[in-house]
């Protein structure tokens, strides 16, 4: 066996302090602290926690078309600093990613700006121009490199078209991700429907706008015996439907986001456009149902739904502001607050952010056993940082936790043996 080409010293791994030896892009071994090796590069991990590199199966990187909000270069830089080894980028760009040309363009931008990672996996549009009328050329998208298909951002109202998409995509082996939202029930909404929307005089989105489509998708998946993945689940009703489906072995998987596990509709008080997101932040009862669902695996994975917007777009009254929260910079720290509060464990985070997404989207595994690809991060759980526009690497500074202190900082991000992010503290 060849010697290591990089040793990351002094990291916390399975309640032990060890050195990690890397070679040929793979993990060679976990060695006792300070064990001598031949001449190779060294990084001092300063005791930080070793975690598998995270996968974010739901981001909007805005390129092509909306580069003033984010581009692939800035989005992947934020992903690298946020601890991600891969992101799946949604198709609601301009032009929409409904052709091999756009998919290849996205892959080229990623390869040019971040040749060693984090990896960009494009998600192809389910329907042409996301219009929900005709299927996009799904096989062409698969061949060009799309890892999943979705109409995210523009939910498919037509159940028959959605059914055909599930069937056609299954021949290609590509997961279908559905943004569950009834367009009529959700039309024009700025926040969750309830007491608060009534008082504030804002149009609210009832939870049924989501759960109705969750039920539709589950029933179709059961009838067709085909898989479906449900995006950014936000409410108890949906959780209960997914639990019902999983108890019957329906091939459904689901995701939610840190913001739905942490915040409620109260965040929009004072007409706070930074807390406007789609689906909207719900009530505490929904938050509690989601927390239990991610613990128990009813909801399979966490994603950011990273939705960067320019400052001036959010600096408007509520109705006008676009929905969305910029998430790549804060996702792991926000998740860690759940660990600190005893709601999730560090093992839960590895499952929700790394292992299950790799399974669902058939990405290389990152189990961190010797021989596996060397894709991991060092997370300094003792650090805290203040969320400021300067501290965020994404172009989108739109998060309601702006100004808050969050726990934990990514110090090192290694993808397939290549350092893609390194904090000055570890050298």
């Amino acid at each position, binding site marked *: 066996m060849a010697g290591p080409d990089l040793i990351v010293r002094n990291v916390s791994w399975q309640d032990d302090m060890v050195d990690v030896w890397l070679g040929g892009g793979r993990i060679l071994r976990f060695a006792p602290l300070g064990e001598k090796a031949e001449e190779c590069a060294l990084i001092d991990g300063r005791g930080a926690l070793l975690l598998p590199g995270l996968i974010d199966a739901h981001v909007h990187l805005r390129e092509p078309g909306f580069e003033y909000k984010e581009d692939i270069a800035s989005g992947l830089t934020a992903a690298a600093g946020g601890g991600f080894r891969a992101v799946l980028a949604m198709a609601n760009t301009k032009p929409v990613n409904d052709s091999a040309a756009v998919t290849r363009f996205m892959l080229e931008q990623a390869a040019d700006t971040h040749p060693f990672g984090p990896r960009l996996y494009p998600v192809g549009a389910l329907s042409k121009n996301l219009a929900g009328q005709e299927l996009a050329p799904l096989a062409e998208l698969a061949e060009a490199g799309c890892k999943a298909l979705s109409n995210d951002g523009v939910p498919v109202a037509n159940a028959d078209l959605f059914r055909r998409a599930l069937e056609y995509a299954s021949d290609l082996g590509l997961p279908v991700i559905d943004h569950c939202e009834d367009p009529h029930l959700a039309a024009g909404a700025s926040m969750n429907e309830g*007491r608060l929307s009534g008082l504030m005089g804002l149009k609210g989105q009832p939870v049924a706008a989501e759960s109705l489509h969750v039920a539709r998708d589950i029933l179709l998946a059961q009838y067709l015996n085909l898989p479906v993945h449900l995006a950014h689940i936000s409410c108890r009703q949906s959780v209960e439907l997914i639990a019902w489906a999983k108890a019957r072995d329906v091939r459904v998987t689901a995701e939610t986001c840190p913001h739905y596990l942490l915040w409620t509709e109260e965040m929009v008080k004072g007409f706070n456009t930074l807390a406007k997101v789609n689906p909207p932040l719900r009530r505490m009862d929904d938050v509690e149902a989601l927390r239990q669902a991610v613990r128990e695996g009813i909801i399979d994975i966490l994603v950011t739904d990273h939705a960067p917007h320019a400052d001036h777009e959010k600096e408007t009254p509520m109705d006008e502001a676009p929905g969305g929260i910029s998430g790549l910079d804060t996702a792991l720290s926000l998740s860690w607050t759940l660990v600190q509060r005893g709601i999730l464990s560090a093992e839960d985070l590895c499952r929700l952010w790394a292992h299950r997404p790799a399974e669902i989207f058939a990405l290389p595994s990152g189990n961190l056993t010797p021989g596996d690809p060397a894709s991991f991060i060092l997370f300094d759980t003792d650090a805290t940082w203040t969320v400021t526009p300067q501290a965020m690497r994404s172009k989108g500074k739109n998060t309601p936790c702006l100004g808050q202190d969050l726990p934990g900082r990514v110090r090192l991000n290694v993808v397939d043996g290549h350092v893609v992010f390194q904090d000055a503290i570890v050298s």
Partner: protein
Amino acid sequence: MLWPHKDLLCISQLTNEEVLHVFRTARRFAEINARPIKKVPTLKGRTVILFFVEPSTRTKTSFDIAGKRLSADTYSLSASASSLRKGENLKDSALTLQAMHPDALVLRHPQSGAAEFLAQRLSCSVINAGDGWHAHPTQALLDGFTLCEIWGEDMTGKKILIVGDIAHSRVARSDVLLFTMLGARVRLCAPKTLLPSGVNTWPVDVVSDLTSACEGMDAVICLRLQLERQQAGLLPDLREYARHFGLNAARLRKANPGVRVMHPGPMNRGVEIDAALADAEQSLILEQVSAGVATRMALLFLYLTRKDQPAEA
């Protein structure tokens, strides 16, 4: 009382005592409005911009007259004439107006929260003349002033019915806050499609049948039905709405003797209010308009002579 607030955004900002102070100030200005010469020099040299991003004739005219009677210089800017039509966003419009150094900006805007949005960004007073479905505090204050002039300042035990499109009504939201604060009991009447979500948590009772809703009422406020509610599928047609939710003399007989009828205007005669009833002696609709000028004079006076107003040079 030195006025402690920079902006008037929502009734919930005000205390009971402050509301009564507005009424007492309005009463003094109502006397001026009854004189042959209606102008006083109180706000001479002050600049008030009327920024109306949504069509409105009566509220804008009311503020305009109120400002001019106090000798303030008023300037009107409406959506059709403003740069908003050319794609300028609200923040930039507001900062542009701010750079002209007004003392107060009166805003009417179709989006809930627009007044608060401006108030956070401007150093001048922002007076909310209606934002989306959220709040219309000057309308509520003039409604309260109108009734106070008849009932006196203590409304304890009085019962007020608001009937119509509560869900989309900034007037209803502000009226409920104000009348409840003054001690009155408020009842709402509307089809469920026109009730706000969470109304069961409001300090009101809800009655769906208008005839029974009128029982025991001392005042009934009819709300304008926007005709687009029918297109949005919230009600089948205007005829059916008028039959079930239009106020008429027969229904009003269930109310207490001396019941008063109000409407914030503009009315759809024959829809939410019977055509003849609007002109009947119970009607306070024109009194509301007069009270509007006096109330807005009081508000401009209080906000432009407030505590933290810079001293004269």
